[in-house]
């Protein structure tokens, strides 16, 4: 009798621990999302008073995948264009105060191209899960979408980066946390 109750208590405790653990363990998100440490300083140089609306260049590229097509999940290889360019350099007009994310979302929606993102209220920024059905983790654990503005990778999320006139935005697919770009 006593042994049985003891066993039962143990069972209950194990169940409780399991429940707590499964609640606590949340998948970590990797990639272009991080706590904004520096304030985005792009919109500071007061040149926004020009008559014509400011414009930037948008480019989406996944040529890192070209040599690794057989590593992709089944059916995804056909999604990669032969030159690796999902969206060739396009001149895009934007209004003052728009972020890299706003421009990407608007332009892809206008072209009916696929984009999935998740918004994280903790960091107050958006994370790009997939563009044109090419998703994070599709080419290994370190793969996903990364963005560059004027050739540099900002250290914060794409919806935190406010654009200024003439910026060149590149969305790049990386298979190694950006080290292969």
């Amino acid at each position, binding site marked *: 009798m006593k042994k049985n109750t003891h066993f039962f208590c143990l069972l209950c405790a194990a169940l409780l621990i399991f429940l707590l653990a499964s609640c606590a363990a949340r998948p970590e998100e990797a990639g272009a999302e991080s706590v904004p440490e520096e304030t985005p300083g792009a919109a500071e140089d007061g040149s926004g008073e020009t008559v014509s609306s400011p414009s930037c260049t948008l480019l989406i590229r996944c040529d890192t995948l070209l040599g690794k097509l057989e590593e992709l999940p089944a059916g995804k290889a056909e999604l990669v264009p032969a030159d690796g360019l999902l969206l060739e350099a396009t001149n895009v007009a934007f209004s003052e105060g728009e972020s890299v994310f706003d421009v990407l979302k608007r332009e892809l929606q206008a072209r009916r191209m*696929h*984009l999935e993102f998740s918004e994280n209220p903790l960091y107050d920024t958006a994370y790009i899960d997939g563009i044109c*059905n090419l998703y994070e983790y599709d080419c290994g654990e370190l793969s996903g979408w990364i963005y560059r503005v004027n050739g540099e990778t900002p250290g914060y999320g794409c919806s935190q980066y406010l654009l200024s006139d003439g910026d060149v935005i590149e969305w790049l697919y990386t298979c190694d946390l950006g080290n292969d770009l």
Partner: protein
Amino acid sequence: MADAFSGYHPAVQFVYFVLVIGFSMFQMHPVCLLISLVCALTYAIRLSGRRAVRFSLCGLLPLMLVTAALNPVFNHEGATILAYFPNGNPLTREAILYGIAAACMMVTVILWFSCYNKVMTSDKFLYLFGRVIPALSLIFSMTLRFVPRFTAQLRTVTAAQRGMGRGGSGSVVRRAKNGIAVLSAMITWALENAVVTADSMKSRGYGLRGRTAFSLYRFSRRDAGLLLFFVLCAVLTAGSAALGGLSWRYYPMTGGVWKAPISLTAFASYFALCLSPSALDWREERKWNALKSGM
């Protein structure tokens, strides 16, 4: 003994349910899902009659609809964009189709398990595994029996409470208090029942070496034949699936490759496997009716 399949050897029944539930869980080809769903529904209705119909309509159909609707809300993968959600993520045809398929699969597996509970009673399970893994098989059979017994006991306790004048009427607070009283009685009963069952099995020497148990099961040629048939169907299905006869993809574009002879073999063998308990029952019924009318 409700149906013909219940009269077969427990090993045959267990192998059958392992195969059929296994295939239903891992085979996402739409035709296979449909075959399995229809057969599970047929067998469940054959076993429990009107109760199965009510359970499917009131319990499983809403569950299916909710599951199918939830997938496209949280999953935006897929090449065909139908519309956009207010926050800007796309609603895709592929996500909707996958949601429907996943809902079908879940409901099918629940239906097969309801059939399993009807056919594989706990004495059969203990007969099969009582020797090999005594403790685990006791816990397993107690767990599987828990929900039906719990609902039965709940009905008893509620009836008793109603008899004492604490029925389902009164203010919300009053009813909540009654409900908590019932819940507390139920939990006490469930815990005590588990301990008592364990003690009672122990005092009967369950799981000791050399201990025998009475059983009426004999593995006859009829059982061997049916088992062979199940294994043959399963091998054919799995083999043609391995050869690519059941290749189907939901993302990024829904579609599959149709290889006529291999796919047809897979569907036919899978259908034969899923339908056989109902078919056995039909055959038995027809034979019985023929004998009766000939008398």
